[in-house]
C-alpha cells in the first residue's frame, strides 16, 4: 500500500524521464552532496555563474560531436576547429573587418564535410581520422600564428553582460542547443541518423542513403562546432592558444558519454549531452572547491569517463538506457 501510494505521488512522466535519463539522479545527488559539504562555497551566486560559464564551454564543444556519436562514429575535431578558426579570424580581420568572425562556422562546415567524405569513401575509423585532423589543425594553427597566441579585439560585444549573474554566452547557447535538439528529434535528418546508429543494415534496407546521411552528420557536427566557436572564441578570452590542451578535448567527451549517449550509437543525442555537460560541470566545480589538488581532480575525471563509458555500454541493472 505504501509503495502504491508513493507511486501515485510521482507522476509517471517523471519516472519515465528518470528511467531514460539516470544522469539526472547523479546530478541531483552531486548538488546535494556538495551543498551540504560546503554550502558557504558552493551555494553562492558566484559559483553558479562559474558553473554556467563552464557549462557553456562544454556544451558548445560537445553538441556537434554528439550528433556524430548518435550514428556510431566519433568526431574529435572540435577543438581543432575552434583553434584554427580563431587564428583565421586574426589573419583575416585586416581584410574583412568584423565579418571575419564568420570564417569559423565556414571552417566548421568545410571540416565536417571533409571528414564525412573521407570517412565514407575510405571506410576508416572516424576516431583516428578526426584525431589526425585535430593534430593537423593544431599544427596549422601554430604555423599560421607564428608560434605566439594571438588575441583579437573588437568582439567583446558577444559576451557583454546583459543580465547579472547570467553569462551572456549562456544566453547565446540556448538557441544553438534548441536547434540541435530540434534537428535530431523532429526532422527526417535526425530520425535517419538515429536509424543508422541503431541498425545500419536495417537503415540500408529501409531505403536510407546511409553514406549521404553519415556525411551530413559530420557536416552538422562541424557546423554546430563552428557556430559554437564564435561564442567560445570570445567566451574563452578572445585569444586562441596554440598548444592543444588535452583537457579541452577530453571534457566534452565525458559530457557526451556521461549524458548517456553510448559510443556505439543509436540513442542519446544533444539533449542528453546538455545534461551530461551540466552534471560534469557540477562534479568538477564541486571537486575544485573541495581544495583537492588539480592533479587529483584530473585523475577523478579520467575515472569518471571510464566508468560512464562502461555504464552507457552495458546499462545499469534495472535501467535501460535507450
Amino acid at each position, binding site marked *: 500500500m505504501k509503495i502504491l501510494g508513493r507511486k501515485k505521488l510521482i507522476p509517471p512522466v517523471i519516472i519515465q524521464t528518470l528511467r531514460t535519463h539516470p544522469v539526472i539522479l547523479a546530478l541531483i545527488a552531486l548538488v546535494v552532496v556538495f551543498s551540504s559539504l560546503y554550502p558557504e562555497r558552493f551555494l553562492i551566486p558566484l559559483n553558479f555563474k562559474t558553473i554556467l560559464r563552464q557549462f557553456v564551454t562544454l556544451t558548445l564543444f560537445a553538441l556537434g560531436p554528439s550528433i556524430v556519436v548518435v550514428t556510431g562514429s566519433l568526431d574529435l575535431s572540435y577543438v581543432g576547429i575552434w583553434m584554427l578558426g580563431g587564428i583565421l579570424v586574426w589573419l583575416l580581420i585586416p581584410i574583412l573587418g568584423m565579418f571575419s568572425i564568420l570564417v569559423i562556422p565556414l571552417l566548421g562546415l568545410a571540416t565536417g564535410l571533409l571528414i564525412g567524405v573521407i570517412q565514407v569513401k575510405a571506410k576508416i575509423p572516424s576516431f583516428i581520422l578526426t584525431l589526425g585532423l585535430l593534430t593537423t589543425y593544431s599544427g596549422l594553427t601554430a604555423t599560421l600564428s607564428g608560434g605566439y597566441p594571438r588575441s583579437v579585439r573588437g568582439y567583446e560585444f558577444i559576451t557583454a553582460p546583459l543580465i547579472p549573474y547570467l553569462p551572456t554566452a549562456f544566453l547565446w547557447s540556448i538557441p544553438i542547443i534548441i536547434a540541435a535538439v530540434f534537428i535530431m528529434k523532429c526532422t527526417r535528418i535526425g530520425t535517419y541518423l538515429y536509424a543508422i546508429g541503431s541498425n545500419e543494415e536495417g537503415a540500408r*534496407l529501409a531505403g536510407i542513403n546511409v553514406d549521404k546521411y553519415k556525411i551530413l552528420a559530420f557536416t552538422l557536427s562541424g557546423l554546430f562546432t563552428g557556430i559554437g566557436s564564435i561564442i567560445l572564441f570570445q567566451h574563452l578570452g578572445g585569444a586562441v592558444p596554440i598548444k592543444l590542451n588535452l583537457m579541452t578535448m577530453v571534457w566534452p567527451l565525458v559530457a557526451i558519454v556521461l549524458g548517456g549517449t553510448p559510443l556505439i550509437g543509436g540513442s542519446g543525442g544533444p539533449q542528453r549531452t546538455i545534461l551530461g555537460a551540466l552534471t560534469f560541470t557540477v562534479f568538477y566545480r564541486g571537486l575544485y572547491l573541495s581544495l583537492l589538488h588539480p592533479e587529483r581532480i584530473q585523475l577523478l575525471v579520467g575515472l569518471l569517463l571510464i566508468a560512464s563509458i562502461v555504464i552507457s555500454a552495458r546499462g545499469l541493472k534495472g535501467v535501460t538506457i535507450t
Partner: protein
Amino acid sequence: MVMPMDASLLEVKGVSKTFDGVVRALDDVSIEARQNEIVGVVGENGAGKSTLMKILVGVYSPDKGELYYRGRKVPFPKNPKEAAKRGISIVYQEKGVIPWLKVYQFLFLGHEDKYVKFSRLQIDKMKKHASQILEELHVKCDAEDFMYEPALSTQKMVEIARAILSVRLERGDDDITPVIILDEPTAPLTIEERRELFSDILNMKKNASFIFVSHIIPEVMEFTDRVHVLRDGKLIAHYDLSEEKITEEDMFRAIVGRKSSEYIYKPEVKRVVSEKVVLTVKNLTKNGCYYDISFDLHKGECIGIFGPAGSGKGEIIRTIAGIMSFEGGDLIVRGQKVKANELPHVRLGRGIGTFSGETGKELFLNWPIVKNISIVNIGKILRKFIPVISFNAEKKMAEKIVKKLRISAPSVNTDCYSLSGGSKQKVSVGKWLERSPDIFLLEDPTIGIDVGTREDIYKAILEMQKSGISMILVSDEPKEYSILCDKIMFIKGGRIQKVLSPEKFRKVMAT
C-alpha cells in the same frame, strides 16, 4: 584397436535443454555417429541443430542426457578443450579463419605449448609437422601460405584439418578417429566450391567421422550415410540412406512438416493480373550465384522463386533489392534500365521495397514501434510548410497499423526489443504495408513465427496484392508459395528449371 564399421563412436542419449526455463530448445534428442561415416543432422532454422552441436562441444551444458564415447559413458564437456579430449571438435560456419596467420600457425593455434622448447617455439618442427598433416589429409596448400591465399573450399579444409589435429593433440594419439562437426560448412561457398569441398571431405572419411549439419537437402542426400531430422527441438526421423530409399521430397516434408499442417489458407477469388509489366529481368547473371534469369513481373502479380537453399534464389531477390550487384543481363524497372550497382535507397526511389523476415535485420530494436513504422514513411508525416515530423500523425499511422495487423503490444511507444518474434515481424511488415511500394520483395516473410501470426501476415500481404502491388517471394516454406503466388519458378543450381502455376505446384509438392 580396429572397431567394426557399425560400432557407435559417439552417442548422445536423451538430451534436453531449455533456455530461460521457457523455450524448449531440445527435447529428448538422441543421435549417434559411427566409425568413419558422415552423419547428417538436418532441420530448419530454430530446429535445435546448433544447440545440440554447442552442447557437444561444451558451449552449453544440457539439462538432461548422456554422452557415450566408444561405448563408455563420459560426462558432457564443459569447454571446447574438454570436448577435444572426448574426441569431438567443430568447424563453424563462418569466421573460423584468421586470414593473416600462416597455415602452420593456424593449424597449431592454441596448441603451441606442444612445440615449446626452452620457452621458445620450434618453428621448423611445426612447419614440418604441418606439412605432413596437410599431405596426409590431402589438403592442397602449403604450410607457409597465408590463410587468405588458398581458395575458400581449401580454407575450409584447413579448418577441418585443424579440428582433427586438435583432437589428436589433446589425446596424444595420432591413430584416433575424431568426430568432426561441420556446421553448415558450405554456406559461404559457391556451387563449384561446394563440389570441391565435398570430394575432399569424402577423401578424409578414413581419418575421421563427421557430423554434417545443414538445411540444404540435396547436399545432405548426396553426401551423408545416415540422416537425423530435427524439428522444433525433437528428433523427428532417422534415415539410413544406404538401406532405405528416400527422396528429396520425403526429407523436405520431414523437415518442414508442422503439427499445424491442417492449416491451409483459402485464398479469395483469384485476382486478375494486369497486362502492365512493372519489372523485366533479362538474362540476369551473377557468376557463382545464378545464370540467365529472365522473367516479367506484371502489375499486381506475385512471382515465387522456389528452390533449395544455395540455389541462388536469395541472391536473385537481393540483386533486385540493390543489396547485391549483377554481372550480366538487364534489369528493367518500369521501362527504365537500371545500373548494376545501385544501392537500396535508389531502388526504393524506383518503387522497390524489400522485406526480410530474418529477425533483427530490419528492425531498430531499441526504438518504439511507432518509429519503426514511420522510418520508411517519413514523407507522409512531415508538416506541409516546414519539413518537421508531426508526432501526432506519426502516432495515428502507427496505431492504425498496430490495429490492422493485431500487433500485441501495450502501446505504440513500446520498444521493439521487448516484443515477441511474431510481433516484431508484424511491425516489419507493417511499415511496408503503410508505404505500399510498387514492387515488394519478400524474403522468408514468416521465418520462425507461429501459425496465427503467419495468418495475419499472409492477410496483410494478400491485401497489398489486391491493391495492385507486385511481389517476388523467396521462402523455405512451400505452402507460402501456393498461398501467395500467381506463378512459381523452380530454380536449381542458379538456373530456372520450370515455371508452374500454384495449382500445379501444389500437386507437385503433394506427390
